[in-house]
Each structure stands twice: as C-alpha cells, then as structure tokens.
C-alpha cells in the first residue's frame, strides 16, 4: 500500500508541475500554524478555506452542470442562521447544530430549486438570485428572532484554540474538495456523475436522448452543491463568532462567482486559486495601508511619496482593486488565471492524452513528440 502510494507519487505526481504545486500548497497549509500562530492571520486562512468550499460547490453546480446559480448565498446563509439559531434557542454545541443546519439548508435548497428545473440560462440565474434576497427581507423584519441587522452574536467556536479551529476548517476543506473533485471527474471509472454533469452542461437534450434522466441529475447537482455550500455556511458563523444578514446578501452570492471565474470555471483548482488570490487582498488591505503609511513617513522624495499615497488610497478601497482585477482578467484571460497558468506549464500528449510538463520534448509514457 505504502509502496504503491510512493510509486504513484514518483511517477504520477512529480513529473507534472501542476500536481507538484498542489501538493506543496496543501503541505504548506498544514505547516502554517506551526510557524505562525497570530490569530488574526490564522483567521484569514480559516475564512479562505471555508470560502474555498463555497466557491468549489458553486463551480460544481454552475460550472460543471451549467445550472447558473446566482443565489448560492441561500445555502450559505440558511445553514449559518440555522446553526446560530439552534445554539441561541436550545444551547446546543456546534457538533450538533452544524450537521442539523447543513441537512436543513440542503433540503430547503433542493425544495426551492424544484421550480428552477424548468428554467434555463438567464431566467434561472435571476430566479436563483431572488431567493436569498427574499429571505434577507424576512430575516431583517423578524428582528426579535434573528436579531435584525445586528444578527446573532457570541456564538461558540469550533475548538478550544485558534490552531484547533484552523485544523478543523482545513480538514473539512480538504475532505469536501476531494469529494467534489471525484464527483466531477469525467474520466472516473467508479462514479458516473462527472460525465453526466458535463453532458447536461454541453447539451441537455442530447443527454436526455442518451437515456439519462437529466431532471434527477440536476436535482442531484443542486443537492451536492447546496450540501457543501451549507457546510461552509454552517461553520462560518462559529469561526467568526457572529452571523449577520450579510451572509445572505447579493455580495456573498457574487463573491463565489467572482472567485470561481477569476481562477477558472469548470476546474476544481480554479476556485481554490481564485479564493487564495483575491480573499487575502481584501482581508489584508488594512495591513497594506499601514505599510504604505509607514513608507510615506520614511520617504523624502516628493514623486515617490505621491506614488505611495496613491497606493495607500487604493489599499483603502480593496473592492475597487478587486473589481478592476476582475475586469482585466476577464478581458485578457477569459478562461481564468489558474487555467491560463496550467496551460503554460503543462501540455497534453497528443497520442496517449497523458499530462506532461510543458518543457518536455517527448511524452513521459509513450515517447511521442510533444512539439
């Protein structure tokens, strides 16, 4: 068993740069709390890990299956509020409230998505967009139960220490991403869903003609995407300590879309790259601003200080920078950042379809020329 894993690692991972980067990335995530235990920065990674689950689940539903859902915050917010309300009224701990909230949110999501099965394209996008906003109005108006705009505060954490919470988030993230990766793998021998999701996206009528019950698989896609979004949503208030109406807002729904499309839609690593590039940008904007403030105080030449002042203003407006980056990426690499980088460092062998490093001359398995 160990020998087989080592062999896989030697021949399946090391020759492919993308897989090496992925392994280094995940190992780094495990090591981070050992070398840095500042809770403020650990928290950034916890949020980022939860948002990775959220973005990948959106990608599974909207990217792979093509059911464009602009209201993914529905699952996220309902699970978050569910878990918080169970704590508030019954005093249960996260270990009990999170699974119940996840199941509840998934069920609610699937039920409300039944009308969505008749809709396609823009109509579907706008229908799904409406759902969390409708709920948002209800949440704010029922302020006795949900706390209105202030939300529910003082929620219990997932573990006693920040490091413990970090590892809970990390392990949940890795497990969720692995499961979703396997479920969407079109070449898998064991799970058919990946291939069928691709077929539904490409041509639903053709998929039906091939004897696939597309309705059942679309519901399944909604259920899987909703389940994982709900997992992220149920853990989020416990990491943060509070939950407010922002978890159901338009911004939350759109952030999943922005992260995924920025990194590369219809790929599991795309949303991961998207979240880990764009989320720190917003989270660390205060630190960056402080850095520029200090730099301006230390600089004496006028033009340099002017430039630094512009940078400081930009650091104060992270969403402006985010929006400009999104526009530039979509204009110049519409396939997404991660996919573009992958195409630069990897090529597919024309004969045996095996992935090779871009700088190799021949395929590593069959020896066919790659040029």
């Amino acid at each position, binding site marked *: 068993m160990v020998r087989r894993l080592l062999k896989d690692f030697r021949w399946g991972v090391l020759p492919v740069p993308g897989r090496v980067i992925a392994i280094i990335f995940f190992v780094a995530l495990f090591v981070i709390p050992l070398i840095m235990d500042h809770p403020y920065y650990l928290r950034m990674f916890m949020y980022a890990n939860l948002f990775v689950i959220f973005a990948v689940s959106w990608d599974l539903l909207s990217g792979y299956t093509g059911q*464009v859902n*602009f209201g993914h915050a529905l699952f996220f917010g309902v699970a978050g509020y569910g878990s918080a309300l169970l704590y508030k009224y019954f005093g249960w701990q996260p270990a009990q409230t999170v699974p119940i909230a996840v199941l509840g949110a998934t069920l609610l999501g699937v039920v409300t998505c039944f*009308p969505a099965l*008749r*809709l*396609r*394209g*823009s*109509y579907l*996008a*706008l*229908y799904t*967009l*409406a*759902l969390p*906003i*409708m*709920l*948002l*109005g*209800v949440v*704010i*108006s029922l302020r006795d139960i949900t706390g209105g705009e202030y939300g529910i505060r003082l929620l219990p954490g997932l573990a006693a220490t920040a490091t413990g919470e970090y590892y809970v988030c990390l392990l949940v993230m890795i497990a969720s991403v692995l499961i979703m990766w396997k479920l969407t793998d079109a070449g898998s021998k064991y799970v058919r869903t990946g291939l069928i999701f691709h077929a539904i996206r490409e041509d*639903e*009528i053709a998929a039906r003609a091939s004897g696939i019950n597309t309705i059942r698989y679309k519901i399944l896609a909604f259920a899987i995407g909703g389940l994982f979004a709900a997992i992220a949503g149920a853990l989020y208030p416990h990491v943060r300590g509070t939950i407010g109406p922002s978890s159901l807002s*338009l911004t939350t729904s*759109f952030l999943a*879309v*922005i992260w995924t*499309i920025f990194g590369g*839609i219809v790929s599991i690593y795309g949303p991961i790259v998207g979240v880990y590039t764009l989320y720190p940008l917003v989270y660390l904007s205060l630190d960056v601003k402080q850095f520029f403030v200090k730099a301006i105080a230390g600089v004496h030449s006028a033009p340099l200080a002017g430039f630094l002042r512009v940078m400081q*203003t930009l650091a104060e*407006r992270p*969403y*402006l920078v*985010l*929006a*400009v980056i*999104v*526009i530039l990426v*979509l*204009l110049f690499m*519409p396939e997404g950042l991660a996919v573009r980088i992958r195409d630069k460092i990897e090529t597919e062998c024309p004969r045996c379809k095996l992935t090779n490093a871009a700088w190799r001359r021949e395929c590593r398995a069959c020896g066919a020329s790659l040029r």
Partner: protein
Amino acid sequence: MSPELVIIYSLVNGGVYALLSVGFSLIFGVGRVLNLSHAGFLMLASYSMYFFTRQQGLGIIESIAITVPAITLLGLLIYKLLIDRIREHPTAVLLVTIALLLIFEQVLFMSFGGNPGSTDLFVPGYSVIFGIKVINQYLLILGVVAVAITVTQLLLTKTKLGITIRAVANDAEVANLMGISVSKTLLITTGIATALAAVAGVVMAPIWPLTPGMWGSPMLMMMVIVILGGLGSIKGSIIGAFIIGFIQILVVALLPGGGYLNLTFVLLAMVIVLIVRPEGLFGTVFEEEKL
C-alpha cells in the same frame, strides 16, 4: 397612506422603473447582453446632477444638458471598450457589469463621501389634484416618463431605425443578411437605453437620497421587471414596471415593517410568475429553446 397617494407613488415608482427596464430589455433583446451596469448609469446621472447643481452652481437646465449626453457617452464608451469584447460569454458579461457597478460605487464614495444628500427640487411647491397634495416634482416625473416612453415607442415602431432595431432583436443573423450592421445597431440601442437610464436618474435626483450603494435596489427591480414581463419584450417591461411599482408601494403602505419586506414580496411575485409562466408575461419561447 390614502389610496390616491398609493396610486400617485406607484405611478412615479413604476414610471422610473419603466424607463430603466425598457433600456435594459432593449439591450438584451438586441444583443442578448444582460447589462447589469445599466442601473449604475442611473446612479451616475443622479450624482452628476448633484455635482453640477450643488457643487458647481449651474442651473438645472444646463446641468441636464450636460448630464444626459455625458452619461450616454460614458455608456457607449464602456459598451465599446468592455462589454462588446466579451459579448459571446454571458457569465463574463454579468461579472464585468457587476464589477463596473462596484467601481462606480467606490469611485463615487471616494469623490463624494458616504451620504452627500439630495439635489433641490426642479420645481418647488405642490399642486392639489382630486383633493390630495402632490409635490410638483412628482408631476414632472410623470410627465417626463410619459414623454420618454411615448418617444421610445414611436421611435421603435415608426422610424427606419426602430424597424432595424426590432429586426436585429427578432433574428440577428437574418437581419445581418438583409444588410443591417448588427454591431452598429447594437451600439445605437445601447446609446438610447443609456440615455433613458440617465433621464430616470436626472428626474429622481431630488427624490432618492444619494448614496454610493443606491444602484442595488434599482438593479434588482430592473431584473425582476424584465423577468416578469418577459426578457426582451418592451411592452412587458413597461407593464411589469408598473405592476412592480404598485406592489412595492402597497406593501410599504399596508404591512408593518413593509420597508424591509417590499423586496421580498416583489421577488415573490417574480418567482410565482416564473413558476406559472417561465417565459414571463409577454415573453416568447422559441421551439428550439424548449425543454
């Protein structure tokens, strides 16, 4: 609120939404582009009125004369430079237009702060109609809306340009074969639509409080209306706008906490229409798009 007031308010509300969603619907019909930043031009027009009347001390007529062409030009530039290049990718268009809205919001926040206030009423005072007091600005808005919608309707039905636009909306490929330049028609349509949004923003500048986030509610309403009326249908968006305007005011007038719940009820109306009639009230389904 008295019933007469509800009617006046919903007419004003619906009228402004109609100006906005007719433009949105036109762009979608002609170019299959869901241009969400359309609501941003309404906000920019309101801010531009504030800038010229309050900060530059210009008169109202001069400010309008600068604002409407300037916003239209900006809309055309953004269309040509950004949206036109990615027209083939619907999700990319949605994202870019959302990003544009965020940029508008941040830039306005940087230049005007969080809560600059409103502009002065164009026509002060009120009139008494059927025994209720209505401020003159509302009458002005109703007049402007009526004129703008009539002109657009006449333009679309009676002129050669209108026939061109409708031809492209019906079938872009065949229109292209008949010698119509689709991209040029699309540009002109975008211009008309942005001008309508700018007019809506100008007349609403004294009514709505100006905030950098004020695009949110009109954008949602605009989307709800075109879904309700049927994407791409002009008649549908006008009727949908008045239905939605009426529902919104009615909820605020009747329910306690209606200020928070009006959006919920408006969206509920949309969801019900979508479930009962997925193509909207006046929309058409093409055989090949049916499932």
